[in-house]
């Protein structure tokens, strides 16, 4: 009984982690940027979604869509205002660009967090579940909303897979992640590719944020921890590898759930962090990453 509980509970949270982390790794794989404002995009999507759904009275469905749209807009803003100017800046020596981009996105993340705290206070908000009530999953009483969220995560990840592997645009993305120079030689404009990948990222992070708000609740104070958990998973799975990220998300999600149930809820984040430290020392490229 407890085992089934752990399996069901862990699955939902891992799926959410997976969705959040996949976008993060996509951005790194294709454009080489570690976006430390990642948590900020999820939080903004959640807060805007809550605000539109409740305060503005749009209702849960429209509110959720508004939240995702906000995530998309913010991701593009991050690219246009922070990342691209730094990458193109002539005042920064090219060896230090990466560092400046990291610092820049970190600062941007702080701005987002403080801005949100100012507008909405730092209390967690929850979006009303899209479907209320509970259902029986293998004998475990589970909120219907939780099942739906896990399903949605996988549908989105599936759509992403289709996009990357079956559409022309997706193949361009793959190519950009392997050899950007080669791509430009073939006549593709890299800047358009980057806009595309940041847009996809914005939608992914937006959906993740809105679903998290519906499942557990999100507040501006979650900005840092969400970024941290995403990049822990991505480093564990291998920077730039989508399948590695998916695997790592489930490893981390289940590690946390097992710890919370079997050891103590207080110690929940520790095993994953220890695993991360070990991974960095023993195998820094992660499970499936390329060096």
């Amino acid at each position, binding site marked *: 009984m407890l085992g089934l509980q752990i399996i069901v509970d862990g699955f939902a949270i891992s799926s959410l982690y997976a969705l959040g982390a996949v976008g993060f790794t996509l951005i790194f794989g294709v454009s080489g940027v570690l976006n430390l404002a990642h948590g900020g995009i999820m939080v903004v999507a959640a807060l805007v979604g809550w605000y539109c759904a409740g305060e503005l009275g749009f209702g849960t469905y429209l509110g959720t869509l508004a939240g995702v749209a906000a995530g998309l807009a913010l991701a593009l803003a991050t690219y246009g205002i922070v990342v691209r100017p*730094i990458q193109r800046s002539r005042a920064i020596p090219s060896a230090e660009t990466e560092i400046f981009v990291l610092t820049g996105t970190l600062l941007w993340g*702080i701005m987002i967090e*403080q801005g949100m705290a100012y507008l909405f206070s730092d209390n967690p908000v929850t979006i009303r579940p899209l479907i209320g009530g509970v259902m029986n999953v293998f004998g475990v009483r589970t909120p219907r909303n939780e099942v739906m969220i896990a399903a949605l995560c996988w549908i989105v990840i599936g759509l992403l897979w289709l996009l990357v592997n079956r559409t022309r645009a997706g193949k361009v993305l793959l190519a950009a992640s392997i050899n950007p120079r080669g791509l430009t030689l073939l006549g593709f404009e890299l800047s358009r590719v980057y806009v595309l990948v940041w847009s996809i990222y914005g939608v992914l992070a937006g959906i993740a944020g809105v679903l998290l708000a519906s499942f557990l609740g999100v507040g501006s104070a979650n900005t840092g921890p969400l970024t941290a958990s995403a990049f822990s998973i991505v480093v564990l799975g291998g920077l730039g590898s989508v399948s590695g990220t998916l695997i790592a998300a489930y490893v981390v999600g289940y590690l946390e759930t097992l710890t919370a149930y079997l050891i103590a809820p207080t110690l929940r984040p520790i095993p994953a*962090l220890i695993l991360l430290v070990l991974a*960095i020392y023993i195998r820094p490229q992660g499970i499936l990453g390329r060096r």
Partner: protein
Amino acid sequence: MRSLSRSRLLWGAILLCAAVAALLPWWLSAYILGILTVAYYFGVFAMAWDLLFGFAGEVNFGPTFLIGLGAYGAAILDANFGQPIFVCVIAGALVALVGGLLLALPALRLRGPYFGLVTLVAVLLLQNFIVIFAHITGGEIGMTVPDVLSADANANYWYALAFLFVCTIILFGLSRSAVGLILQASGQDAIAAQALGFNVTKHKVAAFCVSAVFSGMAGAMLVFYEGAASVDTVINLSIAVQVIIAAVLGGRRTIIGAVLGSIFLILANEFLRPLGQLNTFVVAAVALAVILFFPDGFLGYALRGRQRE
């Protein structure tokens, strides 16, 4: 000849500033002195960071890992074992040193974004540990220490100033010494430095240790100024970013610039206080603007300007 007179002038300038700063308590209110006190400790944080970045070429995204270890090490020792303050400060520095070594030795083997990530992860780990062992560390909200350096604003100010002065002399001196030049070389072009026969890794580890000791000491001193240690003031990522910004603002690779940057940043934070919650937002926005348009910082910009003449 010019470089000799330049450095003599620089040292002279440092002494002059120190003298002026020491006289300030006769003009300024206790409150402004308090702000400057924090700014001086911050200056040491930033200088220690600049030594590592500017000279060893390693970006430490978690200076607060070292600062936090020093701060909490000293605080826990004082709260639980009642040792005198200066013992706790030394202990804090040692804890930071050990932590720094544990972090640095494996991490310096990594390249690219991995080192930066490791330092970030270190901060997270420390933050989580503090929160989980809340009964020893006071958790997220913080812990108090029974002893403070002084309840008098003037005395605290002079302690901080003296501490800053000594650290500046040591760190600036280090940067101008032979060791500093080797570090600078390794930071700019590790392969060439190695080709010249220098043990780059050994020097980088040494730089890390120096950075750790000074960060830890300054963190401990800050705790004994405020009488409290909390995640928000010594570990939080926004503090780490402020340290980095202070150093960048003042000018990377100048050491002294870091002090100027810190003072400017802390004062700016204060003047923006009436904005309430938005003041961190504005400071972060300004810092972002600096990174985008002004990445060489005050001193860096001025010095490079002169080099072009």
